[in-house]
């Protein structure tokens, strides 16, 4: 690594840490319904929306009606997205005259964007019209992220309130997070991106003559607006197929730096919001530290693996598949951050990463996207691991385990287990199915352990609602579109529903005031414990699979 790389990494983390309390504090004001500076700007719109959808924003919901609202909203989003893809040929804003999308691809894409996964089995510029991209995908980029925040807010209220079953109002949370958090940030960021050269227009694709004299089609479109939210909302669905490696999506080192910052910004800031809203910012920083330590550890391993000598090819670090404009460091930073943050965007081909760096990315997905993770989703996923940790370790102090004064009992444990099982179920069973069925194997471009890694990565990405691909796997087939689609649904709602159930149950409990006999959940010991539980539970579940993929590949390479 050069000095410049090191400075960039330091600057990055300094900015991330510095912005966390600022944005986190602002978000807690927004979600608590306090006064804040965006209220005069968008307040009228918020009230208009409530009037339009006929919702009383002050009406509280219990967990079941909260979940019902959420499912209904996501179902409507899915059906709408599915229909406009199947009929895009008849719809406006289709200058490329792209045909209607195939049903299984449309199913996969609809699920993918509704679940905040943004797995793309298709190539954006040759498959989807501007109408579908803007009215369909970009809208889902906002609201799927807002859905994640709403779920997080429900569980926060579960912990901070006592002896009630009221968890807030889903529609209010959805509206506020979209209007006051996602939208303003995206507008500002889109303008910055345009200044860096990201395209934002409705032109038809241009055909140019290259220097060699060949004909090349240059795709156009309203890219900047979608790219802003794709990073801010940890979505990752690129406007173009090459995603953030495409110069129209990510033109300059500055745009690259800022996009990386925005990928982790909201998930990081939500830890502060969490702390603030449960009444102890120390708890928020505890979780931030856990995420940060896991992130930096993974990053270090990846950097080490990428900068070490590749024994097969000789001395130099390999540039194959890397983001050549920005270098290896920025390729590795990007792959680590996106895999950690449930952001499916790529600026480098993960398939070309060294086995260890690829494994780090894979582990980030398998742990359940909790290292910062998706917007809202990372934080509520972490709460699941906290519940497990508190339950196992909390017993060792000789009391019924409790977190934030709430007793963790059979129901919470049961739901936490379901939330951990759901994605694991997807990853292991679907990978097993794909690795022995001809439908699964036919999509492979590589054989051997690497091919296995490609399949494993795909389902991990779906289950973790990440959306990035190892590539090298042709997933736009009926088999993969359907199984990955199901995987995304199970990975999303198989976690959201147990989390909401926990929120509902935990809100009913009393709050035990802390004493010297209370197991502390805001110190270094707890940070270490939580990390250990995450790694051991995740590691034990996936060690056999990993050992037959990246581990064996690494051993073959170094022998």
């Amino acid at each position, binding site marked *: 690594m050069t000095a410049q790389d090191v400075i960039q990494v330091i600057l990055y983390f300094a900015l991330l840490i510095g912005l966390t309390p600022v944005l986190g504090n602002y978000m807690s004001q927004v979600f608590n319904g306090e006064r804040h500076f965006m209220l005069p700007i968008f307040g009228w719109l918020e009230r208009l929306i409530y009037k339009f959808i006929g919702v009383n924003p002050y009406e509280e919901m219990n967990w079941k009606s909260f979940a019902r609202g959420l499912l209904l909203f996501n179902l409507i989003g899915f059906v709408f997205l599915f229909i406009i893809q199947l009929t895009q040929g008849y719809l406006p804003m289709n200058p490329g005259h792209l045909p209607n999308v195939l049903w299984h691809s449309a199913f996969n894409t609809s699920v993918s964007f509704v679940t905040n996964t943004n797995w793309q089995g298709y190539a954006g510029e040759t498959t989807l019209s501007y109408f579908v991209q803007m009215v369909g995908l970009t809208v889902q980029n906002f609201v799927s992220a807002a859905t994640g925040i709403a779920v997080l807010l429900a569980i926060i209220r579960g912990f901070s309130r*006592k002896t009630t079953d009221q968890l807030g109002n889903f529609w209010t949370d959805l509206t506020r997070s979209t209007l006051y958090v996602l939208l303003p940030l995206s507008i500002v960021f889109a303008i910055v991106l345009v200044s860096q050269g990201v395209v934002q227009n409705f032109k038809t694709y241009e055909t140019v003559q290259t220097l060699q004299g060949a004909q090349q089609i240059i795709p156009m479109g309203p890219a900047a607006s979608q790219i802003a939210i794709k990073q801010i909302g940890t979505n990752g669905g690129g406007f173009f197929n090459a995603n953030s490696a495409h110069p129209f999506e990510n033109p300059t080192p500055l745009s690259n730096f800022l996009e990386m910052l925005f990928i982790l910004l909201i998930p990081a800031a939500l830890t502060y919001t969490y702390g603030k809203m449960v009444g102890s910012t120390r708890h928020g920083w505890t979780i931030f530290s856990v995420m940060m330590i896991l992130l930096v550890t993974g990053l270090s391993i990846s950097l080490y693996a990428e900068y070490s000598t590749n024994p097969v090819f000789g001395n130099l670090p390999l540039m194959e598949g890397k983001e050549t404009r920005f270098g290896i460091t920025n390729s590795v930073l990007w792959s680590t951050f996106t895999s950690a943050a449930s952001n499916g965007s790529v600026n480098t081909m993960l398939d070309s990463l060294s086995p260890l760096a690829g494994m780090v990315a894979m582990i980030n997905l398998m742990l359940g996207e909790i290292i910062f993770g998706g917007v809202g989703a990372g934080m509520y996923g972490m709460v699941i691991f906290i519940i*497990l940790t508190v*339950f*196992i*370790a*909390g*017993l*060792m*102090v*000789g*009391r*019924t385990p409790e977190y934030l*004064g709430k007793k963790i*009992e*059979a129901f*919470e*444990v*049961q739901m936490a*287990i*379901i939330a*951990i*099982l759901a994605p*694991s179920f997807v990853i*292991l*069973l679907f*990978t*097993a*199915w794909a*690795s*022995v069925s001809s439908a699964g194997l036919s999509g492979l471009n590589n*054989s051997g*352990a690497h*091919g*296995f890694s490609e399949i494993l990565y795909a389902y991990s990405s779906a289950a973790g609602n990440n959306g990035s691909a190892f590539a090298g796997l042709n997933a736009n087939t009926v088999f993969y579109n359907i199984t990955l689609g199901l995987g995304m649904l199970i990975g999303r709602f198989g976690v959201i529903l147990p989390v909401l159930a926990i929120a509902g149950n935990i809100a009913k409990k*009393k*709050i*035990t*005031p802390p*004493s*010297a006999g*209370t*197991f*502390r959940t805001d*110190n270094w*010991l707890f940070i270490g*414990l939580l990390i*250990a539980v995450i790694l051991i*539970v995740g590691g*034990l*579940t996936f*060690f*056999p*699979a990993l*050992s*037959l993929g990246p*581990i*064996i590949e690494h*051993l*073959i390479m170094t*022998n």
Partner: protein
Amino acid sequence: MTTKQNTSLFNKKILIQAAKESVTKLNPSLLIKNPVIFIVAIGSFLTSIVVIEGIYEGSYSSFNLQIAVWLWFTVLFANFSEAIAEGRGKAQAESLRNNRTQTKARKIEGKKEVSTFATELKKGDIVVCESGDIIPSDGEVIEGIASVDESAITGESAPVIRESGGDRSAVTGGTKVISDRILIRITSEQGNTFIDRMIALVEGAKRQKTPNEIALSILLSGLSIIFLLAVATLPAFFAYSLSASGLPMSQNLTIPVLIALLVCLIPTTIGGLLSAIGISGMDRLLQRNVIATSGRAIEAAGDVDVLLLDKTGTITLGNRMATDFIPAEGVIAAELANIAQLSSLSDETPEGRSIVILAKEKFNIRGREVHRLNATFIPFTAQSRMSGVDFKSEDGRSHQIRKGSSEAIRTFVQNNNGFFPQKVQDTVSELARLGATPLVVAEDNRVLGVIHLKDIVKGGIKQRFAELRKMGIKTVMITGDNSLTAAAIAAEAGVDDFMAEATPEDKLHRIRKEQANGHLVGMIGDGTNDAPALAQADIGIAMNSGTQAAREAGNMVDLDSNPTKLIEVVEVGKQLLMTRGALTTFSIANDVAKYFAIIPAIAISLYSGKTGIGPLSALNVMNLGSPQSAILSAVIFNAIIIILLVPLALRGVRYRPVSANAALTRNLLIFGLGGLIAPFIGIKLIDIIINLTI
């Protein structure tokens, strides 16, 4: 205590009985109560079928047989741990029950007395007991007074008084009347007395899982499902890898190997020991002569963070004691002590005796025969509010010595034409402010000084409270004293808070208030008027000497009627939860080493090319002898660790009164880190032994 006799860990009789029961517990309808062990049993069964099938088809595999045998042992060991805990619990309970199985009862029917078996008594029946009779069942004295020998249940040989009305009316079945005659109304039928309920709690079949045990079982089942998933998908991953390595599908994983891996990964250690831990928690309580009416109560005891403690008997010794003689002006201390001792020689109250003792200790004033001094003792009355002696001195003059409250003595000396010095009045006020009781001593018309009577705080109690504070438990002292006195004693004993002039309603109110603030409250009480508070408290311990109402209201009964028992009960509860947590952590941490043993063993041939030793053998960090010995070692380790941990499960992890953080750090180091390292060593050792014997 009589119940301590059977507590040695490995009583031969219990061991043999437990060994037998570990086989009878193989009954599937019993096994299914423990999901983790049930999975192991199914695995053992399937492996056995594979072995038998192999013999039948002529492809006998000694490896498979060994796996099957050790899997069965895993189940048996788990059963054994439960059986031995039950055996110990039962042995303890039996010793309580023994002496009343064949008791005859003298039942009153109308005016007649009918002899009947104790087992046939119904609730509400009235029986009569005279000296020498064994009380047939739990009941309440409705007429008469008697001394009762309760040594059968408490181990305490001194008889206790039981009388109708008041707070000492409850009697326990199995105890013996040694004097007088009482009529008893039976309050519980045989089979439903406290002891019967306790026995039911330690007997596996009737035992209900407690809330925390249920939650832990769910976690263990959940982990089992995750590992089932990880193991079940492995053949597919292997099929892919085998075809990629150009190996035949016949090399795929066999059922015994898959089951061995599964059994090693699922939390069998804690799964196998879980019920033993729960039962031995009851058992430890019983060893302390406390009977719990539910397992839930013991768990809740660990959570208690506010303790309401009666001052008298718990914090202070029962009575006030003289601690100092403060003479009036012009009087030397020895003279005051001399007169005070004289006034108290015939005073049989504890206060009076303590004055005699103090005089002897401080001024070496010996006891004298009161009647040789021609003295008459004047006892304390509510009217005079003083006591003392009248005697004639050698010169024939009669003297009056009195001790009593300052008001009474003031009247006394003024009647004798004396005066009450201001200095003495100041001393009296000062002592009262400190929470002590001042007794003024006067002879005729002269005030000699003040005796400092003090509530004596029990030795070591302050340290006990400091320990409780470290554990995060708040102590509240309850007393009928005025708040000045209460505050002084509270400060001396080091309790966190006190309630002065407390009525039963105040107690109840206080408990509700603490609970509303999220606290769990424990209290101990004896009187009928304590019953509502005992029922309201999360842990209510009724003293065995108390009323039947109190015993029904609480969820534990202390046979020794010792108020400090509450603290021990809390410790037992905490120890129970800690043991569960520690062994769960140990069990999960063990899996890391097992993976490192089994994964390289089963994947050795993958991508191996011609050498037959594939790249994953690099994970064989323990350098185990062969793939088969590696798998076998892991399975054997997994089985015998259960047996090795049985003593720990029965005894509970060492409990120390330290803060939550300190306890956690300690247990994490021992059971977390230890659990990570121990199996690496254990599996390696077993592997060495296996390879030596082959």
